[in-house]
């Protein structure tokens, strides 16, 4: 397990300041801050509609925030795909900040191997040989090397999600954003995906994890943010937030998930 990094002393890899997002009159995010230090794992928990997914989707510009700034390695994110002088382009940002989705979103017309090599080959312009070596190594790490020639629709949900993780890792990202990656899975398939994430945590991968798996969040994360109504209502160590919550609203929320 990762030692709890102290964000103050190390320069953050990814940072959000005063992040806001509204859809018309509906304010989903009301000014959120986040700072991810290298090797840090932050879990975002909260009731549905609290804005956790919107929040991490703003971090790699899947959603365009209506206010606030996102910085990657101290460079503010531009509004354009390409870099704008000091500002980092959205395309560049996404090369370094990987994302895994709730519904996997594998490319159905490509094999497992092609799903993983697509990024390195097309975006990073690496050779096929290089990309395939990397992909096979990653597929091995998620336990799916033997499925390399299969198409996604022949895989189980858990296998799909593991391929999706390998696809994100193939970009060799500095940060990984995981958006409810086990929520669409049958209960018996959740474990195999969590196991992969646990291994990433052990290797020191920096991650922001939106999850409803409280026990898992408590186990892997170094810091937990409890989002409620578009603000960070509580933040602290897993012990403070999940295991011994003080805030009554948080107590109620955590109790429901501990089952």
């Amino acid at each position, binding site marked *: 397990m990762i030692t709890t990094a102290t964000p103050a002393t190390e320069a953050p890899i990814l940072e959000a300041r005063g992040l806001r997002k509204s859809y018309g009159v509906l304010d989903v995010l009301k000014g959120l801050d986040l700072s991810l230090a290298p090797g840090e794992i932050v879990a975002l928990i909260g009731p549905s509609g609290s804005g956790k997914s919107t929040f991490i989707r703003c971090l*790699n510009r*899947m959603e365009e925030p209506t206010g606030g700034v996102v910085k990657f390695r101290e460079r503010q994110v531009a509004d354009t*795909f390409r870099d704008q002088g000091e500002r980092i382009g959205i*395309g*560049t940002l*996404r*090369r370094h900040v*990987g*994302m895994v*989705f709730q*519904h996997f*979103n*594998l*490319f*159905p*017309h490509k094999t497992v191997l092609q799903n993983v090599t*697509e*990024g390195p080959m*097309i*975006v*990073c312009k690496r050779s096929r040989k290089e990309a395939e070596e990397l992909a096979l190594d990653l597929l091995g790490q998620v336990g799916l090397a033997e499925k390399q020639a299969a198409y996604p*629709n022949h895989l189980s949900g858990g296998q799909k999600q593991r391929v*999706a993780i390998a*696809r*994100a890792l*193939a*970009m060799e990202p500095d940060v990984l954003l995981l958006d409810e990656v086990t929520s669409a899975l049958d209960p018996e398939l959740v474990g195999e995906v969590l196991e992969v994430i646990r291994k990433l945590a052990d290797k020191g991968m920096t991650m922001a994890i939106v999850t409803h798996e409280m026990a898992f969040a408590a186990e892997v994360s170094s810091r937990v943010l409890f989002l409620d109504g578009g603000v960070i209502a509580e933040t602290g160590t897993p012990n403070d937030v999940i295991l011994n919550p003080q805030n009554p609203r948080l107590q109620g929320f955590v109790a429901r998930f501990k089952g």
Partner: protein
Amino acid sequence: MTYNWDFQSVWQYYDLFLWGLWISVVYTFGSVFFGIIIGFVTCAARLSQWRVLNGIARIYQEIFRCTPLLVQLLWFYYAFPLLVGGSIDNRVAALLTLSLYVGAFYAEIFRGGIVSIDKGQREAAAAIGMSPQQAMTRIILPQALKRMLPSFINQSVIQFKNTSLVSVISVADLAYMAAVVNGQTYRPLESYTVMAGLYILMLLPITQAADWIERRLRVSD
């Protein structure tokens, strides 16, 4: 009723039928070719964020989808020249109208195929750093083309049949030639049956192939 079939006297004009058939095929392929280009441009306009472009494309589509092709042919041949002054060659009018007509439908088929692809696909492509263009050509289009194919073939089959309307502005297609042969032989039953037979002969293999493709695509989905 006894009728003395006499295909012999009609079929002696086989060269007219074959030439007419050839003309029909040429207008089909010509209008499919230009229709794809028009449909592609219109589809791009419909998908663009630019409202004016979007509106123009919509108006074009609705005009051509909501008026009969026959009316469009008559308008372009007889009315359009008065509007711009001068005259228009009937073959040009025919190809122009057929292309604009089918282009409006193709645009909708293309657009439907593209928007039917789950938005998660675009997001997944974006998340690994692909540009919108890369996501379109490598992820969205390959999947969308597969979904478009059955409707595209269907519309093209209809287009082949639609070319028979150009005979009303004296383009010598298969329907026109059948009428010519009928004029020569006074044998409408045989003339028009041969014509119908030739249309079937051309299209039956295509519809069968389309069914086969559709079945195969369904299996691999």
